[in-house]
Structure formats: structure tokens, C-alpha cells
């Protein structure tokens, strides 16, 4: 804002960071997630093998030096697929969470801040959305909308020859995870609304109103920054949940399409053969579990760290 | 009078990220049988923690790290949790600051009083309920037997505080510790409560420790007053001595800066400059030295000990190099 403030970073966050650093579990979680982000970003340069290339003479190999996690039923290196799958998992988690967050924050903030009719209507929609069994909704949306969208994409491709329309992963991400986001936003909306409702009546907001500031400024500069803490916690838990949800969809056969590896479809493939080749299940399931746990630890850690009351 | 409670060099530390911070720094206090002691001090100077440490009720991460607190011959700081529990309620009753939050919101107040009787006096429930009614009557709650069935939120603040007092009295304690019991109340109600405690104290022959930051409030109630500043006792004297001949510069400044109803309205109030130090950031010497107009170089080097004030009441003690040197002002 002005020269006066720039010399010092936000020390509230610095305090939180300091508290977080002392929480061993949270730090472990953070390291795992950082590793995940790294792997997701640089996956293609890290994989020992091409995650797609098949070797029918080396099918279902047990873990060995050459293949630390063995190979799958088409002789593909499991480690390479896991690494590439991190990208999928991360993308899914981020897309779902971001979209859900966006919807949730906007609706929740409006409802909480303006109250009245908006609020009632939003709470009604939230309750309604939350009452629909999630898996069912996603499955139905998938089974019904995917085809028309695919067709539309293809028509676009034939018209424009723009390879973007040929990318089917796009449909999966937009549709599967879009619909996931569509059902994941209510908790965020509720959270933000509750936060805004409580913050809205804090004296510093009243003070800001007394200064004559506009609602938009108050919302953006006074209310939302202070709702951030609990949102961050919710988001970190949400990222983990989204990953698990993706794998559940893959189990039902509506997740990411093969041959693109996702931890979900690796798990569900592994489940089918796990009595014979347990490594095909254990590797992705363990990775997913570790990452979920990491997100949870981080979320809990952030929760403690961002809540000064717990650490007075 | 023999000392019922005798606190010596009590220190309390808070575990912080960057090592422990000392909140209470060698407090000495005594309370005689039947005496009422007023403990006065600013917010955060360690009044509540001192009292909580007696009952073993310090929050997590806060520990009494030194000194002793003898109550009727036993060092409370060294009792086992089981023995401490026998002391709580039965020998030392407690009234807390905020009656809004100190009562369990989901329990009927009758049950909350009965609890104290059942676990301390091993009373049967019906008898205890009977007694609870009597206690409510004692603290002046109209139609007490009906109120037993009420939830705290159904009572007004004053009534809630009376219930708290009833709970504090339930075990027939020899010592009642009242931690700012009226801060959250209105002036008219506050006056009612002060009167009530004074009357009960006389009637039940208890010792009372009354914690407050309001010097005026305590004037009509306490026999003796201890003034706390930043975790230490800076002055300790009978009540009229404190008001007549305050010795410590802090006590003096405090009294001077109080506007009164009686005196003439002034243009500007004399005030003490600066702010009290935060726990953990206290200077090595006298904690008041940075704000003290009389401070000498020696004040910054060592923490003054409580010492009798030359030429004043023998019970008048002050922790100030300047005063003890020069005598009472």
C-alpha cells in the first residue's frame, strides 16, 4: 500500500509458519506434499521408463532393482506410472478443489455478507446439493453428459483442426472433475458463510463501515482475509478428499481413462489381480494413503498454527 | 492471627516457543484466618494464575516452577492430584471472574451446586439438593428452590454470579478466593455482590482473597491489600494504610490517576506514562522502573524485595529501593 509497510512481511503468517514448523506431523505432511508437487511438475523427466511403453515379456514382474515397484499386466513400469499418476492426482485435486472453492467462496461470501434472501436461497441450494448422494450424481452426470460433450469436441476439431479439441483428457477433467467440484462446493460455501457471518459482526468490520468504506472493499480487505485461515485448513483436507474421491470413481470405471495412469485406476486395476500380484495394488494404495494422510496432517497442523487461541 | 495461607517466592512460567516466560516472579502473600485480603493489579500481572496455581488448576503449558504455598500446614504446590482434589471446594472455594462462561451452560444450576456437595461432602443426592436450595437462599436468590431447575442462560448476570458464590461456599471452605467476581457486572449489581460477600464472610468466618483491578471497589471490603505489578508484589499493607500512605510509586500513581465522584473534577488527570511490560520481556530490575519518575540507576539492576516501610505501620511492606531508603512519603 505504501512505503511504510513494505519492510515487514505479514508476521501473522510468519507466526503461523513458525508454529507449523514445530509440528512434526505437519512438517512431514508438508514435505510429502512438496515432494508430490515436485514429482507432479517434473514427472516426465523423473520417470525411469516411459509410463506408456509396454513390454509383454516383462508382465506383472515383482519389485526389483530394475523396476522398484514392479511392472503391471502390460509390462509397464509401475513406478513410472505412479510418478505420472501424481500429475493426474494433483491436477484432479487442484481442479476440483479450486473450482469448488471458487463457487463456495463466492456464494458463501455473498450469502454471509448480504444475508437475507441470498442467504436463505443459498442455504437451500446447499442443503439440496448436499442431500444428493455424491457418487450417484457424478455417475449420472458422467453417463449422460460425457457423450454429447465428446461429440461437440469432435465436431469442433473437425471444423478447426485445433488439437485442443482432440484432447480427451480435457473432457475427463472438465466433466468428471467438474461434476466432482459441483458437489464439493457446499462445505466451502457453508464454511465461508459461517466465517463471514461471524466476521461481519466483528468490531473491525463495523469500524470499517463507520469509515464509510464500500461493501466491496470491506468484503475484500476486511472480511475475506480473515476468513482465510479456516479456508486453508478446509482446502488442504479437501485436496486429500478429492484424490480419494477420484480413485473411487475410477473404481466404478468413470475416472481418468486408460491408458493415462491415475492412482485411482491403478488401484482399481490392482484390486482385480491383487491376490496374484499384490504389488500392483499396494503401491498405488499406499501412495494414495500416504498423500491423503499428509494432507490431513498438514491441514490439522495449519489449523493449530492459524489458530492463535490454541497457542496462547 | 496465624497465617492460613502462606505463599512464598512463588514463580510461574509459561512455556513459549522461545523458552519459558516468567509471569509470576516471586510472589509473597499471606492470608490470616478470618482475614480478607485484596489483591490489586493490572490486567495480566499474574493475579489469576497465582490463585489457580494453588488449586492445581493452571492451564496446559503453565507451571508453578518455584516457591511454596502452605495452606493449613500443607504445601499446596506439592500435593498429589488426589490430595489437591480434596482441598478444592472443601477447603478452598473459588469464585471465577466471568459468571457467563464459568457455569456449565448445559447443566441445571441445581446439579452444578449438588455436584460440589456430593463429591466434597459425600452427601446423598436428595440431601444435597436440599442444601443447594439453602445455599441459593443464602446468597439471596429469590424463590431459590425453583431456581434449582433453571439453566444458567435463564438467569441474569447477577444471579449467575450468586450461583457461582453458592458453589464456592458449598464445601464450607476456610478460604474463599474471588477472582474479579464483579468485573462483568453492572455497578448496581456489583454493589449487591460486594455487600453479599462481606456479609457472608462475617457470618461464616471465612478468609477471603478478593482479586480485582479496581482499587475503589476493594476499599470497603478488604482488611489488607496487596498491590501486584508485573508478576511481583510491590506493596502490601492494611487497607487504610494503602489509601492514606501509599508508598510505592506505582500505587501512588494509580491512586492519583483515579477520577473520583467526590473530589473536584479536574482538567487533566495525572497519569503514569508508558505501559506495563509484557511477561517475558520484563527488565531485569524493578519492573516499574521504566515508568517510574523516581527511578534511580540501582532500580534497573536488581529486583527490590518486599521490605517494611520505615516509620509506617509494621505490616506495611513495599518493594522499592527508593521508598525503603527514604521512608514513607
Amino acid at each position, binding site marked *: 500500500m505504501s512505503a511504510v509497510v513494505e519492510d515487514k512481511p505479514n508476521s501473522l503468517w510468519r507466526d503461523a509458519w513458525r508454529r507449523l514448523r514445530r509440528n512434526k506431523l505437519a512438517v512431514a505432511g508438508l514435505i510429502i506434499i512438496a515432494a508430490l508437487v515436485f514429482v507432479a511438475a517434473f514427472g516426465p523427466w523423473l520417470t525411469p521408463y516411459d509410463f506408456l511403453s509396454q513390454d509383454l515379456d516383462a508382465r506383472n514382474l515383482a519389485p526389483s532393482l530394475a523396476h522398484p515397484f514392479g511392472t503391471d499386466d502390460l509390462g509397464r513400469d509401475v513406478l513410472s506410472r505412479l510418478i505420472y499418476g501424481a500429475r493426474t492426482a494433483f491436477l484432479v485435486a487442484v481442479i476440483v478443489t479450486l473450482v469448488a472453492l471458487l463457487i463456495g467462496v463466492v456464494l458463501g461470501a455473498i450469502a454471509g455478507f448480504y444475508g437475507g434472501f441470498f442467504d436463505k436461497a443459498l442455504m437451500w441450494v446447499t442443503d439440496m446439493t448436499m442431500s444428493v*448422494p455424491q*457418487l450417484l450424481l457424478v455417475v449420472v452426470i458422467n453417463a449422460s453428459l460425457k457423450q454429447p460433450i465428446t461429440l461437440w469436441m469432435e465436431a469442433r476439431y473437425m471444423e478447426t483442426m485445433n488439437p485442443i479439441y482432440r484432447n480427451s483428457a480435457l473432457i475427463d477433467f472438465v466433466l468428471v472433475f467438474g461434476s466432482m467440484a459441483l458437489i464439493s462446493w457446499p462445505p466451502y460455501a457453508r464454511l465461508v458463510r459461517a466465517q463471514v457471518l461471524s466476521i461481519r459482526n466483528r468490531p473491525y468490520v463495523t469500524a470499517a463501515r463507520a469509515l464509510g468504506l464500500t461493501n466491496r472493499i470491506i468484503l475484500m480487505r476486511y472480511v475475506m482475509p480473515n476468513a482465510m485461515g479456516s479456508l486453508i485448513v478446509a482446502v488442504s483436507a479437501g485436496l486429500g478428499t478429492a484424490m480419494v474421491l477420484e480413485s*473411487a470413481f475410477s473404481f466404478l470405471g468413470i475416472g481418468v481413462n486408460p491408458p493415462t495412469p491415475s492412482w485411482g485406476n491403478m488401484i482399481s486395476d490392482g484390486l482385480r489381480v491383487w491376490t496374484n500380484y499384490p504389488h500392483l495394488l499396494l503401491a498405488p494404495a499406499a501412495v494414495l494413503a500416504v498423500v491423503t494422510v499428509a494432507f*490431513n496432517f498438514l491441514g490439522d497442523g495449519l489449523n493449530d498454527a492459524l489458530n492463535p487461541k490454541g497457542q496462547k | 492471627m496465624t497465617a492460613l495461607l502462606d505463599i512464598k517466592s512463588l514463580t510461574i512460567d509459561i512455556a513459549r516457543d522461545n523458552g519459558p516466560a516468567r509471569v509470576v516472579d516471586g510472589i509473597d502473600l499471606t492470608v490470616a484466618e478470618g482475614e480478607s485480603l485484596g489483591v490489586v493489579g493490572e490486567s495480566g500481572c499474574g493475579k489469576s494464575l497465582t490463585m489457580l496455581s494453588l488449586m492445581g488448576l493452571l492451564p496446559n503449558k503453565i507451571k508453578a516452577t518455584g516457591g511454596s504455598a502452605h495452606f493449613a500446614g500443607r504445601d499446596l504446590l506439592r500435593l498429589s492430584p488426589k490430595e489437591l482434589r480434596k482441598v478444592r471446594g472443601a477447603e478452598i472455594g473459588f469464585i471465577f471472574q466471568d459468571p457467563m462462561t464459568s457455569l456449565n451452560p448445559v447443566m441445571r444450576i441445581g446439579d452444578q451446586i449438588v455436584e460440589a456437595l456430593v463429591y466434597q461432602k459425600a452427601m446423598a443426592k436428595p440431601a444435597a439438593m436440599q442444601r443447594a436450595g439453602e445455599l441459593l437462599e443464602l446468597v439471596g436468590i429469590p424463590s431459590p428452590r425453583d431456581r434449582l431447575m433453571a439453566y444458567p442462560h435463564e438467569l441474569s448476570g447477577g444471579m449467575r454470579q450468586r450461583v457461582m458464590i453458592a458453589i464456592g461456599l458449598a464445601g464450607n471452605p476456610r478460604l474463599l478466593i474471588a477472582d474479579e467476581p464483579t468485573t462483568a457486572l453492572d455497578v448496581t449489581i456489583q454493589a449487591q455482590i460486594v455487600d453479599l460477600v462481606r456479609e457472608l464472610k462475617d457470618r461464616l468466618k471465612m478468609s477471603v482473597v478478593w482479586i480485582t483491578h479496581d482499587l475503589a471497589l476493594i476499599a470497603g471490603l478488604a482488611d489488607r491489600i496487596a498491590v501486584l505489578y508485573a508478576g511481583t508484589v510491590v506493596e502490601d499493607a492494611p487497607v487504610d494504610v494503602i489509601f492514606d500512605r501509599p508508598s510505592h510509586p506505582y500505587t501512588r500513581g494509580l491512586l492519583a490517576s483515579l477520577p473520583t465522584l467526590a473530589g473536584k473534577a479536574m482538567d487533566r488527570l495525572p497519569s503514569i506514562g508508558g505501559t506495563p511490560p509484557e511477561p517475558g520481556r520484563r527488565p531485569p530490575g524493578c519492573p516499574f522502573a521504566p515508568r517510574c519518575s523516581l527511578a534511580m540507576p540501582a532500580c534497573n539492576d536488581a529486583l527490590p524485595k518486599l521490605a517494611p516501610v520505615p516509620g509506617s505501620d509494621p505490616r506495611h511492606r513495599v518493594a522499592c529501593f527508593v521508598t525503603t531508603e527514604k521512608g514513607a512519603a
Partner: protein
Amino acid sequence: MFAYITRRLLLWIPSVLLVMLGVYALAFYGAGDPIKLIFLRAPGDVAYDPVKVEAIREQAGLNQPFLVQFGNYIWNLLHGNFGNSLTSGRSVWAMISAAAPISLMLGLLAMLVTAVVAIPLGMIAGMNQNTRLDYSILGTAVTLWAIPAYVAGPLLMVALLAILPKGSVPYGWGGVFSVKIILPLLVLSFQPIALIVRQTRAAVIEVMTEDFVRTARAKGVPEHIVALRHILRPVLTPVITQLGLIMITIVNGAIFVELVFGLPGLGRLTVSALTNSDFPVILAITLIGSFLVMASNLLVDLLYPLLDPRASDAKGGR
């Protein structure tokens, strides 16, 4: 209170209608032709015959405009007629009324198990915050959370098959008191338990700092009484709310659990209906599912004043 319940139920009607309309529209416009599905589903050289398809369609009233069909559907629904399954030809109502009680019992039991297991564990963890005990309980909970039902189920099933003597494998439904229910119940409760343990722990930590807990201790009340009487009650309020929300997790988990353990409940019906694009069944299940969730929310709301006498006096922004 009745006015309140009525208002809630009245609000529920438009939301359910909207949900149904959405699902119906998706089924209608997106999913392809259910009749053709019947023909193309079966393996083998089935000749797809447009004439026959049209005949069947007309007979089933599937050639009418969308809103007419939806209207008919709702009208039939109001008369207790949920239509017939496209796969089995059976009355959807009969299928649901056979399956729903099983899922309901399973779900309620899972809630019960969750409450009975998770609340004490969460209490213990919270009251021993940051001790080894706390960490191990929390760690277990988080791990349970990370093992989805569809992994835990098959793993346990196969493990049991290896251990148990022939003929004693817990497959299928044997009623609430049968040993067969133990394993599905366990798997179904994993995630809810994890959630509730953490929720309870957090609430306990919060309540422990409340002044009234200190008051209770100052009265000399023994520690276990403090836990049971002063901490548990206030903790229950947020936890019960969470329990209501957990119904969704249970409904989701039931899909996998019922499938793996052969329980003929709604979850299994769901999978079957989904694989067959059996929309009358899907619609009915959606209706029932959202009813279940709404009902459990309503129940929780009704429980609220019982748990927290303050709630019955003035209603703050929940």
C-alpha cells in the same frame, strides 16, 4: 416444533423435485436410449432393430415430450408407482422397499458403531492432547480415513476367505444380529469413525479451555466425572451435527461395502442400476438417498435443543 418440521418438509419438496428434474433430464437427454440399451447391452450378435425398438418405446410411453414424461413420472410417484426397472422388469418400489430397510439398518448401525467407538476415542485423545496416546489415536484415525471402503472391503474379504473355514464366509445378509454384519459394518464405519474421532478431539480441546470446566475442577469433582458430565455434553452438540452430515459418507460407502459383502441393499442396487443405466431405479434411489440425508439432518436439528438448552431459548446463527 410441528410448524418447524412442516416448514422443513415443505422446503424439502421443491428441492427434491429439482433434483429429480435434474436427474430425469440427464437421463432423458444425455444417457442415450434406455430401450436401445437393452438390446445393445447383451453380448453376442444381437440384431438391433429400429422397428422393434420403436414399438417398445411407444408401449412404454417413451416417445412423449420430456415434460409430459416427467409429469407422468411424478404423477405415478405420487400414486406410489415408481415404475419398473429396465433391467429386471420388476416394480422399482418393490425393489427399493426390499433393499432400503437393509441399507437403513446398516447405516444406522454404522452410525451407532461410529458414535460408540469414535466419541470415546476422540474424548481420550482430546483430553490427552499431544501425548503419545493422542498421537496414536489420531494416527489410526487418519490412516483409517486414508483407506477407502472399496480398498478395505476386498482386502478384508479376501483375508477372511483365507482364514475362515469353508462355509463360514460372511457373505450376504443375515439380519442385524448375524455375524455376517460385523465386517461390512466395520468397513463402513472406518471413515466415519476417523472423521468423528477428529471432530470430537477438536471439540474436546476447545471445551477443555472453557471456564466451566475449570469451575468443575475447582469444585473438587473427580476427573472422570468432569469428562463425562462437563466435557462430553457440550462436545456432543457439534459432534452430533457432524454425525448427521456423515450420513452422506455412509450412503457413499454403502455402495462399495454392499457390493463387496453381498448385502442386498440400496448400494448394491445402485451399482446394478448404474451398470445397466437403469434410470427408473437410479431416480428412485436418488430420491430415497436425498430423503435419508435430509431426514438425518432434520433429526439432528430436532436433537439440538435437547443437547443444548440454550438453543431452545434463542436461536443464534447456527
